């Protein structure tokens, strides 16, 4: 790919001592990913990541759905910053792209309209008695993985290569809209050719697939999804992307936004059930991974440890291609060995639910 322009959009990413805030969607649907992020950073890379159990949702979903006013969300964000300040950190990192967009937007608003920052400080103090410092740097967690991608590459046990053919895996990357479309300078590679995930893929031996609808939204769209009658618009967007990428026969999709990961995965199930269309080989779906899961697989983590059984589209075909060893029987067992239930048979997971389940009660 003659794509070098990403280098014109670089941003400062701190090397260590991050204050980590979680994502509503990721912690509910991909809890293994957040755990993996912390493990990779702390254990594999030896970095310091601080956390605060009392931090809340950024309320971005409510904000984008017109039910949380601007003043409120600014105060909530200020509270998160106060937590960071109290914990003695300066580098703020968020797991969620929506939150990342919210933080970027609010910091930018405070810069342009300092009186709003003043008012927010006042609201926060009145409500909680807290005070805060603005973070020195703001990064999305994918920025941080990108920052350490070479080191992860060095420690890689399973590069993104098809073990049978020796060919690099073809990876479709999807960047959440609020990563760089709000402020192109806030994302690595800008908004047109973001490089944050592509950089990881290339460093870990995979091949990035550029396809026509690459920049298109996954269709989450907050209000479009939240109102059932509007979901047709939401799903149509995912379908547009899937149709556009299917001819390239990608091995998997990786996204940096929790919402996108969820919708690209779950809408494949819905489309298959509603229309009978699937986009992967042999009537299956295209597996959708979070970048934490991708990094985890590269570093040799167990797929069920990474929470990949939570996916709607079965990941086993990909694991087989990568040569990942896994216990099919353990897929739907919790850490304590308890059966966690399993999805009904569906087109996108057909071959992978027919395995006999050993119930260990």
């Amino acid at each position, binding site marked *: 790919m003659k794509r070098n322009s990403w280098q014109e959009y670089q941003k400062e990413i701190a090397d260590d001592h991050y204050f980590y805030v979680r994502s509503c969607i990721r912690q509910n649907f991909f809890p293994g990913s957040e755990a993996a992020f912390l493990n990779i950073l702390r254990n594999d890379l030896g970095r310091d990541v601080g956390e605060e159990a009392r931090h809340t949702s950024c309320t971005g979903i409510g904000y984008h759905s017109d039910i949380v006013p601007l003043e409120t969300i600014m105060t909530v964000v200020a509270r998160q910053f106060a937590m960071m300040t109290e914990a003695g950190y300066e580098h703020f990192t968020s797991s969620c792209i929506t939150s990342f967009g919210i933080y970027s937007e609010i910091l930018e608003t405070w810069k342009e309209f300092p009186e709003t920052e003043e008012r927010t400080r006042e609201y926060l103090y009145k409500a909680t008695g807290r005070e805060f410092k603005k973070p020195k740097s703001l990064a999305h967690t994918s920025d941080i993985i990108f920052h350490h991608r070479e080191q992860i590459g060095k420690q890689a046990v399973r590069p993104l290569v098809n073990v049978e053919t020796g060919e690099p895996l073809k990876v479709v990357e999807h960047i959440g809209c609020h990563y760089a479309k709000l402020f192109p300078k806030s994302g690595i590679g800008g908004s047109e050719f973001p490089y944050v995930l592509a950089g990881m893929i290339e460093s870990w031996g995979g091949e990035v697939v550029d396809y026509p609808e690459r920049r298109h939204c996954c269709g989450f769209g907050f209000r479009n999804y939240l109102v*059932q*009658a*509007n*979901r*047709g*618009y939401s*799903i*149509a967007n995912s*379908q*547009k992307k899937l149709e556009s990428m299917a001819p390239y026969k990608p091995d998997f999709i990786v996204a940096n936004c929790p919402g996108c990961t969820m919708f690209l995965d779950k809408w494949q199930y*819905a*489309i298959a*059930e*509603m*229309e*009978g269309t699937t986009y992967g080989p042999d009537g299956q779906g295209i597996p959708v991974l979070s970048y934490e899961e991708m990094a985890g697989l590269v570093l040799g983590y167990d797929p069920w440890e990474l929470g990949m059984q939570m996916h709607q589209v079965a990941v086993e075909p990909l694991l087989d291609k990568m040569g990942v060893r896994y216990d099919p029987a353990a897929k739907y067992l919790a850490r304590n060995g308890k059966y966690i239930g399993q999805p009904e048979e569906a087109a996108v997971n057909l071959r992978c639910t027919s395995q006999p389940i050993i119930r260990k009660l």
Partner: protein
Amino acid sequence: MVQFGYNISQPRAINMDKNDMMISQKILRTMPELQTCIACGSCTATCTAGAITSFNFRKVHTLVRRGEYKGAYEEMNKCMLCGKCRLSCPRGINTRGVVMLIKQELGEYR
């Protein structure tokens, strides 16, 4: 197939890769002057039918030129062929001829 209480919306975009351009091309071959429309809208502004309906001659023929034929026949049937548009067209397009042509090419009875 499973019903989840919503459908997959059809894209609103005019997809020039999927649209069948044959009829549109034939219409333009027959009346190349239609291509000179500069969308001034005077036809629609003066339209006798347009004054009492939503008929928009300019928009309908533009859609037809893009291969969007659905509903064009029905829309063109609102025209009374009075000819005011032809008098007002700065490009000298035979607008009544266009109406007749589009109806002929898109009428289902053909």
